[in-house]
């Protein structure tokens, strides 16, 4: 199979085109801009349309309209731009529209910096917009996985009629790695008979999230909640590395998962029994992955490019059954594998001593 | 002069009285009894004078008016 050397951002864009994405609305922002530039260049050739929106607010609402019209659509941005999309995302979730949103996270808050960051974890997983809703959040950690998960994202969005976010950072977005575009089995997806495509030949469709009666509002909430439960049951994804005999577990996703993996390898060389659990879905958080290991693990190290956000989900997923510590860098800085291992030994001296 | 017949949908009418005011022939007025929603609805008080000019219908915000016309001389 042909290998391409692609930037992460380009890989996302190409994967989207191959997944049938025919509309893209976006507004430039570093470090995600290559996605929209790629779309501007390549969508016309497949009869797709790229529109540079006047803002991220407009971009997400254009996605709303297009998704409501039944077409595969995507937008991409980075942290401040994603913040501007929160109202729109809440509307999209409430109207159950399949939209794929890419967040190539940069250092925040505020204008911040352009360095890699994972500080938008809470925003993505707990809902930065108002009301109870969930995005399906996918966290690739290689350029190849950016490709695969982007393609999955469109299927998941259509399957569950739910917005899906692909979350990565500037390192993943900017780096080049070899990728292949595999032929993928086409998933059986429900017909979009709810879409507003003009009512010719069928009863008319309306898409709205307004409910003045609280009873109806509650019924909607319960319906959404049931959907989220079924997603949580069916779609948790994670990778386990060296966990069979692990007494300790590093937990990391995206870029930090790669670094943590290197740290695990270094630790293993020293005889330390530590493994890695890499959440691939950040929502639903891979609680099942933790459950299967819970008995054997004496301590967790959450490796993050934030002040410590996923660590809360790790504690919740493990029911606080063992201590969970944090190894982090912030503001665009990235820890070296050595640093992660050092931190590990610092918080779990017993692990190193046991060797 | 043409002869018109106006039918006001009593349930739709909110008694805003715009039609009453706009009718050049002063054909319409409001009922004394409210409809089930509590509105005093419009009705033809002086049906004979209606020309079927449809001004009332053009101005009715609730699209509650229907009009027929018999051309004069017919």
């Amino acid at each position: 199979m042909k290998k391409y050397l692609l930037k992460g951002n380009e890989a996302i864009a190409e994967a989207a085109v191959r997944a049938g994405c025919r509309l893209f609305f976006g507004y430039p922002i570093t470090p995600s801009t290559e996605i929209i530039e790629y779309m501007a260049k390549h969508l016309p050739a497949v009869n797709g349309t790229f529109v540079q929106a006047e803002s991220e607010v407009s971009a997400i609402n254009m996605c709303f309209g297009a998704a409501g019209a039944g077409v595969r659509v995507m937008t991409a941005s980075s942290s401040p731009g994603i913040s501007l999309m929160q109202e729109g995302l809440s509307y999209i979730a409430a109207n159950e529209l399949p939209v794929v949103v890419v967040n190539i996270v940069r250092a925040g808050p505020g204008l911040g910096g352009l360095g890699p960051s994972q500080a938008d974890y809470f925003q993505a997983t707990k809902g930065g917009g108002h009301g109870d809703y969930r995005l399906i959040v996918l966290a690739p950690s290689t350029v190849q996985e950016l490709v695969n998960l982007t393609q999955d994202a469109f299927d998941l969005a259509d399957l569950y009629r739910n917005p899906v976010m692909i979350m990565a950072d500037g390192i993943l977005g900017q780096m080049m790695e070899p990728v292949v575009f595999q032929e993928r089995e086409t998933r059986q997806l429900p017909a979009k008979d709810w879409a507003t495509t003009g009512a010719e030949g069928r009863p008319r469709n309306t898409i709205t999230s307004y409910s003045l009666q609280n009873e109806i509002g509650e019924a909607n909430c319960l319906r959404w909640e049931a959907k989220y439960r079924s997603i949580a049951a069916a779609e948790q994804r994670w990778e386990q590395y060296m966990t069979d005999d692990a007494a300790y577990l590093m937990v990391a996703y995206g870029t930090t998962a790669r670094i943590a993996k290197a740290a695990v390898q270094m630790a293993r060389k020293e005889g330390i029994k530590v493994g890695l659990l890499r959440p691939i879905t950040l929502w639903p958080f891979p609680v099942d992955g933790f459950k299967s290991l819970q008995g054997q693990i004496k301590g967790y190290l959450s490796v993050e490019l934030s002040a410590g956000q996923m660590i809360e989900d790790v504690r919740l997923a493990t029911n606080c059954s063992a201590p969970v510590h944090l190894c982090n860098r912030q503001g665009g800085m990235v820890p070296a594998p050595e640093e992660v291992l050092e931190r590990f030994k610092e918080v779990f001296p017993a692990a190193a001593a046991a060797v | 002069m043409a002869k018109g017949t106006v039918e006001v949908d009593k349930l739709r009418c909110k008694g805003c009285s715009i039609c009453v005011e706009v009718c050049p022939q002063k054909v319409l007025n409001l009922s004394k009894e409210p409809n089930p929603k509590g509105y005093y609805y419009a009705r033809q008080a002086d049906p004979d004078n209606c020309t079927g000019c449809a001004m009332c219908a053009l101005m009715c915000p609730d699209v509650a008016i229907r009009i027929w016309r018999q051309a004069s001389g017919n």
Partner: protein
Amino acid sequence: MTEKMIISGFGGQGVMFMGKILAYAGMLTNKEVSWIPSYGPEMRGGTANCSVIVSDEEINCPVVNKPSLVVAMNGPSLEKFLPALIPGGLLVVNSSIVKNDVTRDDVRVLKIPAQELAAEKVGKANLANVVVLGAMLAKTDVLTLDDVVAALKEVVASKRPEMLAINRQALEVGMNYVKENQL
């Protein structure tokens, strides 16, 4: 065999291209590769650099904190990245421009007057980067000249086939300079 490289210089010196060619060459020889640029306005006016890893093993950490090879196309690059070079690592210097002293003696140093070589021996001063690439290949085992030529074929030749020969020539000029001078 893993080579972790940082290639750094002014914007316009073609350091990104050098990195890409190396990564491409690695990919074509079925090695694991990664390439990360510096990005954003930090590039504007200042220096640009990229980190490239070519390896026989899976690349976990793509960030190069401790390079085994540094290419410094200008002075600020040398200052910035020399301290990070691992002991025994290779420093390749574009000595046409870089006048700084190399302050470490635990690293291997390769000084290439790339500007001059490119101008005089290739006839194109703006191929200094390719000359440096060639020189570098003489001193690393991770990729051969042929690997890089193959990469150039795919990357350069697809768009500007007429450039292939001269690029190849520049590579050879660099490599030969090292060999001839027994550097």
